[in-house]
């Protein structure tokens, strides 16, 4: 059937996407280390920070996998893979340069939203299939915190789709040639970043894998599977950073420099924001956060869509 005729995709974009994911994950780890050293008051050591992620990954590859009593043998290893695949799927709809995307489909932001929601399912299954109590509690936390803010991202993304009159990310980027969406409706970006923190289990929203649960969903996992999980979390963060740069900061648009360079710079800036939030904002208390998510953040996202709608009126 006519899939190929509708989805003008670029096969060359697939290796680029993989490179972006792997490079982004490495960059997140390095930034995280550097920023941690700055915050802790010691002198940042660039050489060490550059080597550290490689060494830690090597260590995890050398470790054997452990097992619990009667885990779900299929779903347990599949969960991290699904998590990483969802991060990649979310990124696949984003063009890296004009007309250069794995699949800049007509329903771009809906695909991104679906990937985000399935993320919570992956995290839940990861916690559930370990057959261990603390991991299971972590899994439940992921679903419950997910419900409190997964609506946000859809409203915010609809907000950016309105001026573009399209659900395609490519069109959304093109529609920002005059003015970036972050200026048009400034509420969107911070709300989107909150969702990103939640989807990547990062910093203040790292509730399912938190320390008081002794690692939560990842607490029973070691070796290559843990490497996959940590990789997937960072990949999800990268996916949100690139999406934030494309949907709110004009993506690959910019003067003088080539498009991909602009996108890279904006994405790295977003990643830096994520990493900084991770070190400066403590883990939120689920009860308080959920109350705020429903009573403050959700109405703010309505306001955002209202502003976007009024602004997009011809």
């Amino acid at each position, binding site marked *: *059937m006519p899939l190929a005729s509708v989805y003008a995709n670029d096969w060359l974009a697939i290796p680029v996407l993989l490179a972006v994911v792997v490079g982004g994950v490495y960059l997140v780890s390095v930034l995280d280390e550097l920023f941690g050293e700055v915050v802790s008051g010691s002198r940042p050591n660039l050489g060490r920070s550059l080597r550290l992620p490689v060494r830690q990954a090597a260590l995890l590859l050398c470790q054997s996998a452990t097992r619990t009593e009667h885990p779900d043998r299929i779903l347990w290893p599949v969960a991290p893979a699904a998590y990483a695949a969802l991060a990649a799927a979310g990124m696949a709809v984003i063009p890296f340069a004009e007309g250069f995307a794995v699949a800049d489909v*007509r329903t771009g932001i*809906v695909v991104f939203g679906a990937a985000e929601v399935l993320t919570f399912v992956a995290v839940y299954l990861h916690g559930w299939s370990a057959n261990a109590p603390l991991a299971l509690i972590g899994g439940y936390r992921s679903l419950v915190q997910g419900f409190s803010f997964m609506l946000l991202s859809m409203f915010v993304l609809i907000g950016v789709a309105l001026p573009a009159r399209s659900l395609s990310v490519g069109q959304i980027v093109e529609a920002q040639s005059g003015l970036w969406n972050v200026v048009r409706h400034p509420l969107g970006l911070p709300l989107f970043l909150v969702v990103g923190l939640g989807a990547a289990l990062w910093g203040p929203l790292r509730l399912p894998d938190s320390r008081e649960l002794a690692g939560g969903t990842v607490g029973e996992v070691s070796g290559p599977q843990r490497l996959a999980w940590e990789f997937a979390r960072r990949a999800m963060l990268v996916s949100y950073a690139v999406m934030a740069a494309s949907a709110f900061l004009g993506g690959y648009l910019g003067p003088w420099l080539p498009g991909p360079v602009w996108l890279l710079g904006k994405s790295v800036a977003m990643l830096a924001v994520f990493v900084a939030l991770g070190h400066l904002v403590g883990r939120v208390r689920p009860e308080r956060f959920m109350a705020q998510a429903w009573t403050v953040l959700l109405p703010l996202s309505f306001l955002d869509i209202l502003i976007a709608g009024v602004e997009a009126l011809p």
Partner: protein
Amino acid sequence: MNPETSLWTDLAFWAFGLAAVWYGWRVFRTDSMVRATFALLASFLNVGAIMVLLLAEYLGTALFFMMAVEMAVMAIFMVAFMMNPAGLNPMQMVHQHRFAIVAGAATFAGLAGLGFAVDFPDRPLIIAADTIQQLGFELMGSSMLVMQSIGVTLLATMIGAVVLSSKWGRYGDSDAGSVPPSLDPEQREEDRS
């Protein structure tokens, strides 16, 4: 029959279609509530994928989106009410089993037979059409009434669901009514207070 249908699309269709039915079947064949729930999710995801193959991408992706949320809710409900999240105990909770099998098989045979027997019009989709834009204009244009009804219905559903599931109803605690009201008026007054 669409002349452009390629071998790959056919293969993908059969893979998704058989997987959808298979996972639907697994829902009722597993001891674990969580596995049942996510088997149903897998069935929906496969149907969504077929919709994307048919160029109803918006509906297909919306199905992904909606079902992921709904099944996550369902997983919580299943575990909360069914107590057998890990499938530790074997579970077979069925009634009128033989009748149900016959009814299911008959439904399948009847509907499938209908699909083959009836000569439906063969008017495939015009590929160049922007189906998503069409849907948008239809919803916000001539089918506006449908969209408005959907909105009102969903609002009513939300209110109804909250009213039904909340602990405190119009007549006091919802779990306090297990005893039928007494026929004696004085006793009834006493019960109410």
